[in-house]
């Protein structure tokens, strides 16, 4: 009798387990389908430069053509002071928010055009081993005071924003110059990479954004928005309504409209919509993500990035005398941005005459 009861208990258990089994199998199948669909809808980043430019339905987009001042941020933030204490790689605030000295600034502002040409040729002959390639969409230019704009929306905590800013600064230097740049890092959880801050950043607060920079150009405007969160943690991006509210609080038309252009106009289309940081616009080109994955002299694997163990001084020394993959990749990444701007300003800047830049323009940049 007891044996039969035990058998029934076992049978009941087996039956209920079988039901759980079918439910779990169904969940697994659905999850696999979702995963497969996700893989299909998100093709991998191009690993070599190629004509990936697509034309967004520009007819549906209305460009901006406004008159506005641009924001000049403060040179110093009392709530986010420069920290001079030496701290270990991976957990650094060393020299954070410190302005570049004149020698360091000159490396960015006065990089020889020959470096851009060499890197461009290396990119075209595929001797750049790191990932370089941007998926660019043609969009109406954001025109302020008669000049097209470069718009940057990123986060100080973000790994890709941080490694990409070196290439951005080099590219921008071809059309104007920076009177100040600042030392910064990505967040500890996102590589602790040495990077550039366009303006002193609130590296220890949440819910804020840094607007503006110290860039001047006769060809283009540079509109920079860096989302801020404590860099001692991991990557974070404040909710988009917070970024919008912060932009509106500046009272600056160019910044208010730039944020609206990204989140309201361009985000109506899936190919140009904001899907993560960095998000940049280079004249008539919108680029989602970084245009190069440059975390050192070799492609990284796992969570160890050579750039984590480099100082700003080491990065700048390599950019001053490029002789390795890291430095040439930064210049190659810059070349793609240069080509996009040249294409947007009818090749009126001297750098646009470089043969490599012209080749890249022919490829669709």
């Amino acid at each position, binding site marked *: 009798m007891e044996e039969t009861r035990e058998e029934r208990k076992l049978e009941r258990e087996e039956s209920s387990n079988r039901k759980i089994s079918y439910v779990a199998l169904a969940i697994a199948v659905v999850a696999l389908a979702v995963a497969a669909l996700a893989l299909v809808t998100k093709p991998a980043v191009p690993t070599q430069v190629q004509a990936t430019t697509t034309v967004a339905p520009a007819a549906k987009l209305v460009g901006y053509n406004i008159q506005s001042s641009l924001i000049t941020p403060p040179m110093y933030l009392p709530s986010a002071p420069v920290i001079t204490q030496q701290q270990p790689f991976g957990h650094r605030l060393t020299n954070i928010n410190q302005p570049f000295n004149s020698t360091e600034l000159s490396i960015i502002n006065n990089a020889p055009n020959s470096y851009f040409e060499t890197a461009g040729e290396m990119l075209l002959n595929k001797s750049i081993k790191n990932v370089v390639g941007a998926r660019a969409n043609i969009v109406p230019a954001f025109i302020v005071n008669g000049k097209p704009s470069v718009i940057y929306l990123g986060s100080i905590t973000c790994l890709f*924003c941080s490694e990409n800013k070196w290439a951005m600064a080099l590219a921008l230097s071809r059309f104007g110059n920076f009177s100040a740049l600042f030392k910064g890092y990505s967040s500890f959880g*996102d590589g602790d990479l040495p990077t550039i801050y366009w303006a002193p950043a609130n590296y220890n607060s949440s819910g804020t954004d840094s607007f503006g920079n110290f860039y001047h150009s006769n060809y283009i405007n540079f509109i920079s928005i860096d989302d801020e969160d404590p860099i001692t943690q991991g990557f974070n991006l404040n909710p988009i309504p917070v970024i919008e509210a912060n932009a509106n609080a500046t009272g600056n038309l160019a910044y208010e409209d730039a944020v609206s252009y990204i989140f309201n106009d361009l985000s109506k289309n899936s190919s140009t919509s*904001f899907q993560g940081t960095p998000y940049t616009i280079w004249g008539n080109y919108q680029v989602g993500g970084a245009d190069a994955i440059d975390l050192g002299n070799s492609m990284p694997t796992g969570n160890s990035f050579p750039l984590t163990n480099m100082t700003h001084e080491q990065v700048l020394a390599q950019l001053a005398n490029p002789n390795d993959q890291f430095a040439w990749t930064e210049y190659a990444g810059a070349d793609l941005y240069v080509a996009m701007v040249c294409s947007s300003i009818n090749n009126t800047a001297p750098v646009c005459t470089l043969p490599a830049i012209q080749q890249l323009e022919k490829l669709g940049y």
Partner: protein
Amino acid sequence: MPKSQRLSILAKIFKSPAYIATAIAGAAAYYLLFYLFAKFNAGLFLVTVPMYLIYFLVATGAITLTIGVYGVAAYRRSSQIATCSVSTLTPIVGGLVVSCGCGSALLTPFLLTLGFNALQAVAISTAIARYNSLLVTALIIINLLLMYYQLGSLRRFNEGKESKG
């Protein structure tokens, strides 16, 4: 029956070269699954969670799979298929979780396809990216709980067989 019977079942399974091979093959397959999903963040296998968490996730998933295979093969316990399939899910979900970072996540365009707007999709991806280490840890705990459940189920089945005998 003492609870250590769970451990003795586990030891019995891993005394067999066939099940050790199953675990190794499972771990390799799960690591590959994880790798494929994770690398879609930037076209590279580039993650910001500690690697030991990934190894734990893969190892616990493979052990869970092996116990499940043992349950099905040795006892004809079809219910063990459930835990096998759930263990397969964990590296996939783990891969999706770690693909969420500051760049465009694998999940974001998919969420857009589902009808979420850009703001919502980015908010979800960012939230996942922010808590990615915790989420991977949660997946490891799910695997450990599954293992405990599987071994308990096999123990009860053993007890039933013994009392019958």
